[in-house]
């Protein structure tokens, strides 16, 4: 079983360090399969090396985040898997 496999909601912590809006209720469309849904409803793989939010329909990586918090605080965010984010 996938120990790191959680709901998209579990990515909310690291994403809230980066985005100032409520990301779990933002609607994202997958570039690969077109499925659209709230980030909270997707699948998040959360571990110390980074967080990857994957499309619940096709496993495509929607959002990838890495974070350095020793020394310089840096974040790297890849949103290439997202066709669009819809915020209300």
């Amino acid at each position, binding site marked *: *079983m*996938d*120990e*790191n*496999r959680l709901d998209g909601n579990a990515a909310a912590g690291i994403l809230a360090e980066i985005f100032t809006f409520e990301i779990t209720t933002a609607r994202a469309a997958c570039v690969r399969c077109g499925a659209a849904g709230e980030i909270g409803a997707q*699948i998040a*793989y959360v*571990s*110390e*090396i*980074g967080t*990857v939010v*994957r499309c619940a329909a096709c*496993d495509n*990586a929607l959002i*990838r*985040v*890495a*974070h*350095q*918090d*020793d020394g310089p605080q*840096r*974040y*790297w965010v*890849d949103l290439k898997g997202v066709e669009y984010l819809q915020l209300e």
Partner: protein
Amino acid sequence: MGGGFISRGFRGKRRHAQGDLRIPPGQYLVEGFPVLSAGPTPRTPLGEWDFTIEGEVDEPRRWSWEEFCALPSEEITRDIHCVTKWSKLGTTWEGVSVDLLLEGVDTAVEYMVAFCDGGYTSNLPLEEVTGGKAWIALTYEGEPLSPEHGGPARLLVPHLYLWKSAKWVRGLRLTAEDEPGFWESLGYHNHGDPWREQRYWGD
């Protein structure tokens, strides 16, 4: 690391590495073998599994699971170091040397990308996976490699941070240019030497 707040009485499970010369800077020992993943654990049936050497080579190579398992393998014992700071000393593996897989492969290029079920990749110069530095590992501690740790086969490059040791590896693609892999394209150091603490870009 934080604003200096200390949680009274918290010790955590790791063991101190004071003065142990086998432990790179910033690392600590763990007892278990943590599983970190970026995606679902692949479950490719062995009948469908193959391993290939492809890309900038004169003749690509391919082995089925049976053929791969028939290759000579080595037992090795190495220390491993994860960029998330845990280390394990003296881990035992059995695997096929990458030197063996590349033997006689005709190529003019200097880089490769390890590619995997599930889409994970890591990039390495050929120099870092040859000369007895890398294996395709099939067993860990005497047992077939479990899926959560990359089974049936993973790349093992113990002298670099463990994210380079791509789990669920299906082949090596030789490339003319260095092509940053999954984590290398997202802030993690392109080379990843634990002894120089090359964790992130610019380190």
